[in-house]
């Protein structure tokens, strides 16, 4: 089975430091990690490979430094990585990103299964998985919490929906987005880390992928980000005194003020 796992480089969520003068997030290389949700997708891919054999390719669109996270993916068990990196990809929204990723998947070719994390922790859209599947014209299943059965042509999995759980059986090729419940990602071994240094990581650009310029980067993105800012957070405690009626009125007015 040929499995592609989409991974995104995100800042480490454990520490976000602000520049005191510009109030922007200080991003340095050592804080970049694989998007935590994607690590579950990666782990699931490796478990499938261990169970029924196959090949795992980690795929990412990003700046050249994102090669590091692809090597990280190899260190835990992926066989190779593919980085889609080109200045013209910059400023892509989810639509343009999904299109670009679909070109990567086509380049890899004959893919049976694509695994994505539920969403990225820095964007929170959860759109890439389904949009990528649409681009590839394959089915997708979101919020998968367990893969119950899998073989080269068929998958039975459990998904979590707003109203409960659902068992879904589907034919491959298929794209799944996975939840954190699905597994516990492993840490790499020393051997894994060392081997990943020489692992094959292909770098593709707009030209080598044959990208349509109007579908990539800023020009392919109908979403325009006008401004990004850090929401102002207020931590305040108010003591509310009085009888139940007064208290409930005050609580009511505080809630109204907030929303």
């Amino acid at each position: 089975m040929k499995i592609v796992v989409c991974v995104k480089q995100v800042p480490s969520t454990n520490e976000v430091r602000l520049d005191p003068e510009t109030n922007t997030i200080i991003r340095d290389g050592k804080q970049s990690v694989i998007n935590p949700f994607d690590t579950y997708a990666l782990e699931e891919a490796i478990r499938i490979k261990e169970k029924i054999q196959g090949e795992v390719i980690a795929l990412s669109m990003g700046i050249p430094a994102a090669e590091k996270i692809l090597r990280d993916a190899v260190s835990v068990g992926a066989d190779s990585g593919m980085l889609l990196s080109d200045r013209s990809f910059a400023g892509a929204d989810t639509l343009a990103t999904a299109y670009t990723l679909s070109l990567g998947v086509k380049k890899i070719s004959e893919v049976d299964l694509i695994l994505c994390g539920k969403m990225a922790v820095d964007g929170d859209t959860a759109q890439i998985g389904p949009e990528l599947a649409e681009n590839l014209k394959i089915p997708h299943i979101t919020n998968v919490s367990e893969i119950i059965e899998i073989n080269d042509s068929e998958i039975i999995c459990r998904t979590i929906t707003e109203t409960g759980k659902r068992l879904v059986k589907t034919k491959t090729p298929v794209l799944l987005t996975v939840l954190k419940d699905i597994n516990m990602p492993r840490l790499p071994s020393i051997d894994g880390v060392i081997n990943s240094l020489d692992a094959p990581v292909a770098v593709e650009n707009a030209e080598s992928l044959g990208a349509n310029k109007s579908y990539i980067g800023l020009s392919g993105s109908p979403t325009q980000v006008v401004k990004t800012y850090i929401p102002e957070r207020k931590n305040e405690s108010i003591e509310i005194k009085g009888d139940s009626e007064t208290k409930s009125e005050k609580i009511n007015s505080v809630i109204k003020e907030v929303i």
Partner: protein
Amino acid sequence: MNNNIIHCMKEDYIEYLRDESRTIGRAESISFPKNEEEIIGIVKDMYSKEIPITIQGARTGLAAGAVPRKGHVLNLSKLNNILGMRVDSEDNYYVTLQPGTILSQFKEKIKLRKFDTTKWDFKSKRVFNDFCKKEEMFFSPDPTETSATIGGMVSCNASGARSYMYGPTRKYIEKLKLVLSNGDTLTVERGKNFANGRKLELKTDEGMNIEFKLPKYFMPNSKNASGYFVEDNMDAVDLFIGADGTLGIITEIEVRLLKLPEIIWGVSCFFENESAAIKFVEEIRSNQKDIASIEFFDKNALDILKKQKEINPGFERLPDVDEKMKSVIYLEIHTEEEKEALIDLKKIAKIMNDSQGSSKNTWVAKNDVGLNRLIFFRHAVPESVNMLIDERKKENSKITKLGTDMSVPDEHLEKVIKMYKKDIIKEKLESATWGHIGDNHLHVNILPRDNKDYDKGLNLYEKWAKKVTELGGAVSAEHGVGKLKSKYLKVMYGQNHIDEMIDIKSKLDPKLLLSPGNLFEVGKRSE
């Protein structure tokens, strides 16, 4: 004058009669002073009435140093402001803070560079502005219990995993301000006042001279937090670090920060037999640079953790350890460049493969997310053992964990581990061992099932204290002596040297009011 500050010991304050050692004491009154002036007022009051004072921080200590026996409890948790910052000509940054500052909060402030500077003087504010532009810094002492106060850490000379590379709290304390038992204040600053041989002269801020002879003992040649720090021509500040609150009340501390290494990687190495793990440690210690910590867990500790994981949802996300594995060695690599760290990893792999291990049986954490998982694993071990003991304590209140804190010089590591194992098996006791194997400093935890086990454990503890002393080691390497280990301090130094310590105390605390029961029993002099 102090009626608003000093409270009678009532039900509301019952928590303040105990600490993490799970020992329960008694006291008649308690206060939570907010500044030095209040402390001086309280202390003078107690001095005139000859009421003993027990000093408390966050009560996270394991040796009952903060557990009162009688008298007054002086709780410093509200004395928790960060007062200022300075930089020296070599670009070292120093922070002045109050003793109730919580370690985890202090670390967070340094990391995020978020200090409340509104009350700082102009100079400090200017230094802080430069500090914000500098590379990331950190306060290196890292006891497992991060809710400890810095004052408590100074009082017991706390360490942690990373003291293998960076040394204990002592090394990072530049200046202390203390209130003595009569209400006078004393300021001691590193590099300013040295003993003449074994004679030390101090001058209080009020101008009074205090002179005394230092004890004649020689400290062990291993990691040590047992009794007063004493050596020829020592710096005066060192006497007050690790003094367990017996000489004065610390009201201000200046600590030194270090530049945070660019690369911090964690590696857990699993071994199918314990002697291979010990051999690996010895090899790493002799041949491997950039190692900030070398930690150990035995099979019993792993089994207890595994059981807790099955029943406790808080531990659900812990990674599973292969059943075959009998020991874990955790290494932390601190270095400036990734390529150096990779070279270190390759060498570690070779040493492991040469020590009957396999570099395949390792977990590497190369970023904060992974590192936090390994740290969580490390911290979950003592937590799960405490949970097990708390369960047993419900059945039998006498039962408590008997955790050792002894260290020996490098050459005796294997010998001492064999002794612990042999004695535990012979006495048919249950145990779990972990700790700072790089410093030959293991916490052997005897887990009594009944009173008989508990008594057998106590006997073993005393036997080991004697043996460790013979090997040139220390009975307490990082927790401090407090009240629980005072008898082992006597084993280590003998009553004559204990008397010399009491002599120092009586010079600084003539009515012997501060922290009675810590380090020694003042009533039990040899003459």
